[in-house]
């Protein structure tokens, strides 16, 4: 359709043009930024209603990973004797479960979010991308609660911190009562190191990897409800392809980098490196996983934008 000659207007910044969707819809990230208040409110709403009318409330965010940890420790740690980079298996699996749960809970919520909010989508215009983003962001609260629980595990397993170790050693040697636990602490090869400063970056990567997959899934789910059925199953499979119950170091060499094509793999290994100070710096793994994430993120965002215009008609 040829554009007719329209006079320039003083308020041209507010021109809204409505056209059939192009093959490549621009991402329009500016609009997303302008609607950040809405994003915030959606996230807040999700957090507020998540544990409404439950007795245990936010405790569920701790109970789930904690019980999973116990079961994993028994089955994989005790019975299957899975290697764990020399870290007590419960601690090893719990640290791995933190980003994994954030990822899989985020996917579960975000994949369905366009369908569960169909009423809104049919009646009001807003950048739809806000919905999957807020669904994942709201999982951050659960993550932080379960992360706090990690502190308890640290104390239980007497984690080493380099600067107090020397003092601890001296004190323990002078006091036989503590000698045994001090010995354990000093000889343990896990400790809180300076790696921990990378945690915010890893958290951002965890968010981006969940978002990258969710953009694809949520958009596909509008037309194909198969996604809901497939996802449940796929996540259960993916857990075994992610180094949550085993370390990447247990994999044969060529598989190590291939396993990192799974966007969350790098983050899970990165978490252990940051939180437990394991030796294996996950650099190459993180690079591969981040590249996979960025690829899915960009293609997912364009796919989402391309199909966005049909959501209201299909959902």
């Amino acid at each position, binding site marked *: *359709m040829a*554009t*007719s000659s*329209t*006079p320039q*207007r003083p*308020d*041209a910044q*507010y*021109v*809204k*043009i*409505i*056209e*059939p*969707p192009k093959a490549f819809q621009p991402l329009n990230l500016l609009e997303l930024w302008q609607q950040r*208040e*809405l994003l915030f*409110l959606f996230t807040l*709403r999700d957090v*507020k*209603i998540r544990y*409404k*009318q439950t007795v245990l409330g936010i405790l569920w965010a701790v109970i789930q990973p904690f019980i999973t940890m116990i079961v994993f420790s028994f089955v994989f740690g005790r019975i299957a004797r899975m290697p764990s980079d020399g870290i007590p298996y419960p601690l090893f699996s719990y640290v791995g479960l933190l980003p994994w749960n954030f990822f899989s809970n985020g996917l579960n919520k975000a994949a369905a979010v366009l369908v569960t909010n169909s*009423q*809104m*989508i*049919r*009646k*009001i*215009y*807003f950048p739809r991308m806000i919905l999957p983003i807020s669904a994942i962001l709201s999982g951050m609260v659960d993550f932080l609660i379960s992360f706090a629980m990690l502190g308890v595990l640290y104390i239980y397993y007497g984690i080493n911190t380099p600067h107090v170790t020397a003092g601890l050693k001296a004190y323990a040697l002078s006091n036989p009562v503590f000698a045994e636990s001090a010995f354990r602490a000093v000889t343990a090869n896990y400790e809180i190191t300076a790696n921990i400063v990378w945690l915010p970056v890893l958290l951002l990567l965890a968010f981006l990897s969940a978002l990258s997959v969710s953009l694809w899934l949520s958009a596909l789910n509008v*037309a194909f409800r198969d996604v809901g059925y497939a996802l449940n199953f796929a996540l259960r499979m993916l857990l075994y392809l992610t180094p949550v119950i085993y370390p990447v170091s247990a994999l044969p060499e060529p598989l190590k980098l291939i396993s990192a094509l799974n966007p969350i793999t790098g983050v899970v290994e990165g978490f252990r490196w940051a939180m437990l100070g394991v030796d294996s710096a996950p650099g190459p793994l993180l690079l591969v996983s981040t590249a996979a994430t960025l690829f899915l993120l960009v293609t997912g965002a364009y796919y989402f934008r391309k199909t966005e*215009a*049909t*959501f*209201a*008609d*299909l959902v």
Partner: protein
Amino acid sequence: MGENAIEVHGLGKKFYIGQAEKQTDMMGIIRNAITGPFRRMASLMRNQLPEAADIEFWAMRDITFEVKQGEVLGVIGRNGSGKSTLLKTLTGISAPSEGIARIYGRVGSLLEVGTGFHPELTGRENIFMNGTLLGMKTSEIRKHFDEIVAFSGVEQFIDTPVKRFSSGMQVRLAFSVAAHLDPEVLLVDEVLSVGDAEFRRRSMSKMQEITSQGRTVLLVSHNMASIQHLSNRVMLLDAGKMLMIGEPTKIVSEYLKRTHIAPAEASVDLTEHEGRADGSTPILSRIRILDAAGEADSAVPVGGTIKFEITIDTGEQVVKNAWLVIAVMDANDVRVTTLRTLNQNMDSLTFHGQQKYTCTWPDCNLAPGEYRLDIEAMSSMTQGKVLDSVSRAVAFEVTPSDYFGIGRVIRRGSGLIWVKANWELDPTALAIS
């Protein structure tokens, strides 16, 4: 002024209609369940959405118009004429298939009151949620917060989850948020018909206030009275095409003429009537208009007797606690009066099989003109109470008469009804002080 706020050129929207699988027997259902996945995958290979058939359907096409800044454009048309599609396209909710539209200025839209209300959140939280969804800034909502709450009249419950609100309260709160939207261009769909009579009156005057502030408004409504009242121009859509656009009273009367049923038809079969509301159970089967002698006649002189005979047929079904409602509407779509079995001389009815109810109006004092009836069968046993509802079921004409007995036929009189009032001159007040 004088500049366009909305420009629409050749806008069209196409849908593919899927055909429902018409298999009702057990074997058919099983066969479909087995072959379905393969058929659907095959259609995916052909780059087609499953379920979608090849049937193309244009919900609207070739829509071209302009709206000047500060103008209020009303959009009318029957169900399925493309009104909602036009509005959804302009708001950006769903993309057009062809054409282009430009909207200049901050756009706000209101297709439904209460979108995004969450039952678990409090009134206060929902005001912020809903307001932001409608395009307000949090700071703006905070500024108008007290006004919004006051207008809704739910002050006491503002920190209660809205699931504890009555539906009326929810609607009032939702409308109040919407009423405080402050965009330069407002796109509105049929929102004036919510709440009780008192609230409708208030929202109508709020709407009037909004439209008189020099804002550009595109208003879709079924209510001819409010469309005429609020709009500067009216556009008539039919089957996705723009039929005409122009002066409100002219377009509205043209629309009413088109949807009008010839008054000569004093007996109308309702079983397959096009005015039946979606989701109704077709119980109302016939309406007849009778004169005092019981003869079918669709014209009555002012002051004459008119009878409405409704035949219902529920088949085997027994419906208890039921009642019938006849709404008498004038040519401008204003409800003149309501005749109902309940609260008049009949108590709750029991519908069973075929029954005939006759409503006699002994002194039909409506002003001369054309009227039509909307008929409803209600029951407190059904969800939402409406069993069956047929609008524009039948029309009748009230003809001029010597209503006041003065020996000549009065042709005109303003107002909706004629009243035999009694005038007197007070003989004691003769003295001029």
